[in-house]
Structures are given as structure tokens and as C-alpha cells.
């Protein structure tokens, strides 16, 4: 089933980490397997934030030496960052397997991400001037507390509660997905993509990489490919309705925008609230009520509808 949600404030940064936590917690019943957040903080053009994991949570159940391995893998990460000329400003480790790096870097971000992902167990979850992507097993409150999202200030965010249907229950298959290797672009999805393997092979022939077997990752790669070809976010969303087959509703965020698309069958839900200050959208209205607790006018976007909002 899955639940998706997004919020964008037209103006100053607010406690968007807390807002996304409240929205996703109210959608817990739509997917108890994992929860993920892509939140956008105050942009620092000369600084990057990289979210990285070096193992899966379940590795701790099966591998006695995993802590030592993670320590060795992190040393490799530090070496490669130094080799590529990245200056590490700060490192945090909210869980035994997840890391947050604050960096100064002026090189090729794709090269950096690819190099780090060649390290065993390595996956760059996000890389950007404002994007921070956090995902883990458990409900929104658990994940938010684990990663300290309550204090996160930002202008917008998207999130996901996952009911695993097309792939495994692990962090790798959890949403959101970063539109690798593009700065600050992330995707969450509710639905099933029926031409996943056809589209995936097409993307792989074009040189894109997939880290999971989750059909939702295709939307991130597909968006990245369209943007690489010069499309706007709205172009990409519109094209997806024609080219992606299945039942889906998804949300994409960039450093300045929030967009959504609904498939031709309109089989996956979305409720939308817009005011002068805020746009909030979610699979169910209860998620919007979690941050706008008064009577409001909401609507459901129709089939093949595409919307994009600016922060």
C-alpha cells in the first residue's frame, strides 16, 4: 500500500523534520516496514551534506565481525574523499551503519559517489547542498528519533512509509531515493511499476546504476536521466505518465521545488492542501491534519495530473 507525503513552505525555514515525522507517523498503517525522509535544510552553496551507509541493519544479526568491517570501510571512505580533494568538515554516525558527512568539494559528484559505492556495503543515500536523506526500518517516530530529525530546520521535505511488495524489507529498498548523481533531487513513490525491468535495462544501457531491485528506484534514475537530457522537473513528470507503466503516484523534490504525478489509472491516492504559506500533500488527509489541525479545504488530483510548486 505505502504512504507518501510532502510539504513545502513558501518562505522561511521551519521545523520541517518535525512536520514530516508527524505526517509519516499518521500514515504508519499504510506501511510498517520502513520509513524514510528527504528533508531540505538551509542551502549552503559552498558546502555539501552526504548521507552514507556502510552496511544493512540486518548485517548485525548475521555477521559477528560487522562492526570491525564498518570501521575498516569508513577508513576507506575517508581515504577516497581525501584522494578526490574533498575536505571533511564534520562527521556524525547516528547509527552503527549510517554516516553524515559535511564536506567542501569542488569536483565531480558522480565520480565521488561512484568511488564510495565501490566500497563493500557502501551506498550514498544523498548528496547535496540542502538535501538530507534518512531511511531506516521502523516507524516515523523511531527513525526520526534515531537520526535526530526533531530539530531539523528546512523549507520542504518528502517522506515515505513502506509496505514492501516488489522487493525486500531492508534499508536499500526503502524510500526515498536520491536521483543519483544529481544534487538535491529525491523521489518517493506509492504503487507498482509493471514495465520496471524493461525501463531498468533501458536506463542501464544509458549508463545509470541501480542499487536495489525496488521498482521505485527506477523513478529516481528515470528523473535523473531526464534532467540530464535538459528536461525540467515538470517535463519529466509529464513524460513519466506516458512512459512508465503501472499504477503509481509519486512526489519529487529538488532544492527549490516539490512536484507530483499521478498515473493514468488514478489508482493510488493523493490528497492536496494549498494555502498562501504552505502546500501539503499525502496519501491520506490524516497526514495533512497532523500539521494543519484545523478545518481545511482539500482536493484529490485527477489521473494524469502533474503539479509543481516552488518554495
Amino acid at each position, binding site marked *: 500500500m505505502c504512504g507518501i507525503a510532502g510539504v513545502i513552505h513558501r518562505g522561511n525555514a521551519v521545523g520541517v523534520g518535525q512536520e514530516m515525522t508527524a505526517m509519516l507517523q499518521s500514515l504508519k498503517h499504510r506501511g510498517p516496514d520502513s520509513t524514510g525522509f528527504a528533508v531540505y535544510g538551509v542551502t549552503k552553496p559552498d558546502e555539501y551534506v552526504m548521507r552514507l551507509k556502510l552496511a544493512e541493519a540486518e548485517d548485525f544479526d548475521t555477521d559477528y565481525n560487522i562492526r570491525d568491517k564498518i570501521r575498516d570501510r569508513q577508513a576507506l571512505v575517508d581515504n577516497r574523499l581525501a584522494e578526490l580533494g574533498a575536505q571533511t568538515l564534520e562527521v556524525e554516525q547516528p547509527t552503527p551503519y549510517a554516516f553524515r558527512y559535511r564536506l567542501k568539494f569542488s569536483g565531480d559528484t558522480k565520480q565521488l559517489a561512484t568511488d564510495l559505492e565501490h566500497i563493500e556495503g557502501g551506498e550514498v543515500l544523498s548528496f547535496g547542498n540542502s538535501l538530507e536523506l534518512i531511511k531506516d526500518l521502523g516507524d516515523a517516530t523511531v527513525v526520526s528519533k534515531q537520526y535526530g530529525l526533531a530539530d531539523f530546520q528546512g523549507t520542504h521535505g518528502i517522506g515515505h512509509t513502506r509496505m514492501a511488495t516488489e522487493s525486500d524489507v531492508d534499508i536499500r529498498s526503502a524510500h526515498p531515493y536520491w536521483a543519483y548523481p544529481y544534487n538535491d533531487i529525491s523521489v518517493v513513490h506509492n504503487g507498482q511499476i509493471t514495465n520496471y525491468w524493461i525501463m531498468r535495462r533501458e536506463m542501464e544501457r544509458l549508463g545509470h546504476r541501480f542499487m536495489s531491485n525496488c521498482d521505485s528506484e527506477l523513478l529516481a534514475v528515470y528523473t535523473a536521466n531526464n534532467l540530464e537530457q535538459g528536461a525540467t522537473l515538470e517535463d519529466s513528470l509529464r513524460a513519466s505518465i506516458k512512459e512508465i507503466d503501472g499504477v503509481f503516484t509519486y512526489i519529487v523534490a529538488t532544492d527549490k521545488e516539490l512536484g507530483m504525478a499521478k498515473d493514468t489509472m488514478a489508482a493510488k491516492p493523493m490528497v492536496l492542501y494549498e494555502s498562501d504559506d504552505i502546500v501539503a500533500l499525502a496519501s*491520506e488527509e490524516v497526514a495533512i491534519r497532523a500539521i494543519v489541525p484545523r478545518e481545511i479545504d482539500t*482536493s484529490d488530483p*485527477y489521473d494524469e495530473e502533474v503539479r509543481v510548486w516552488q518554495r
Partner: protein
Amino acid sequence: MATLTRAAPSEQESKSHEMGMHTEQLTGRTQQVFFDIDLNEAHHGFSLPDTFDVDFNKRGEIDASNMEAKQVNARIREMMKEGYGTIVLKNPAAKHSLAVGILNRLNLIIEGSLGYFGCGLIDGPNIRINGRVGWSCGENMMSGSILIEKNAGSQFGAALRGGDLVCKGDVGSRTGIDMKGGNIIVGGDTGSFSGFMMQRGRMVICGNAGKNLGDSMYDGTIFLGGEPRSLGVDAIWSDMTDLDREWLERKLTKYDVMPKGGIGSFRKIVAGKQLWNYDNLEPTEKKLVL
């Protein structure tokens, strides 16, 4: 050896078939007779077990702020048992599955919005909702009325069997999917596949409809005030009759959803019945051998 035969249609059956409709075969208070539009509003025959004798002048309130849906529904039932005929439900906050399974006369006023599955499986109450409703509102409703002031989500009135389900705003996709009776009235627009596999009843859309309107409908009637993006398979335009106009005038006036163009803006859609296999006789060459 015997062959299956069908009884000659009654005068009413013949008349309704000419208009692309036919009488319901249901019994009890869910029975709908298309040419007596007030019959289902008269609340006759509430004689099922567990129905309550209520006084419409006895009014009570429920504040749903700190209650689960199950508790709210249980409280409504308790209050009906205590004779309350008018209940005001405050702060529903888009919770799911509120006011489901009410099998009694009741005036229920909901001050706010409902989530999914609101007012499903009801038989008898008149419900007014000041906010909006989520997916599957009024699913399997049997009789009574639901009036929604704002918008509604998809599957609005799915498998509706009787009563009036009215939304003054826009509604989502698959409105009235598989409806088997009753009336759905939409003051604004509907999404795609409205009236999909509709079997009986009437649907009124004052605004525009999405693609595939009336797709694979077996029977029933759709009145459209605006434009459809497309008609579905086997849905065809038909001629409006004086009876249609009279019925529309009464219903739309009653619920105050008359479009600017008035009754004259409506056109009628029925099943072409090229795909019709529901209620059809077996082919005559198929004989039942005893």
C-alpha cells in the same frame, strides 16, 4: 424436459426498459422503485433486529477529538439506543471509517471532514457533512442520504444500493463503480471511470467527467451537465425524457446543486448493451434438462 422461460414484463418494467432502466429486484427497505423518488426517503419498515426508535428532537453531541473511530461508532449506536434522533459529531479530523454501519433512522450532522470509508454500509440515516470525505464514502449504502458540502475522494458510492449520495464539490475517480441502485449527485466534476460497471441507479454529474465515463455499464443512467473527456466502452448517448427532466428538477432543487445552465444543460448516457450479459436470458438453444 423443460425450457427456461421468462415471465412477461409488467407495465412498469416495460416503461423503465424503454428509458434504459429497470425496476430493482431487491426486497425490504432497500427496494428502489425508480418512478417514486420519495419512497426511499420515507423511512418505512425499520423492523430489522437492533433498530432503535429514536426521537429526532432529542439532540446530542459527540466530540471525536480524543476518540478512535471504533469508539465513535460505538457511541453513535449507544446514543441511538438511548433515543437520540439527532447527533452532532464534532472534530472528526479526517479519521477513517467514521459513521459506518448505521442501520437506523438518524439525523447525523458531521462538523468537519472524514477520511476513508466514511458512512459505508448505512441503511436509513440522513447524514450531513460540512467538510470533505476521503476514498470510498458511502460504499454499499442501502438507504437514507449523505450530503457533503466540499469535495470527495475516489470510489465515491462504490456498490451503492439505495438512497441519495450527494457531493456539492468535485469527486475523484471511479465514482459509483459497480453501483446497484440509488442516486449519486455530484455538484462539480468527477474523475475517470465514473459509473464503471454500473448496474442500476442514477448518477448526476453537474460538471465535467474524466475519461471513460460509464465504461462497461450494464444498466442505469448517467446525467451529465458538462463534458466528458471520453465515453467508456458500451456507454452511449440517449434522449432526455420529460420524466428525466422532472426527476432532475426535483432532486437538484432539493439538494441545491442546480448548475448554472439549469436542467437544459444535461445530457443522458445509458448502456449500449452490446456487452450486456448481466440479467440476460441464457441463449434459447441452451436448454435445462431435468
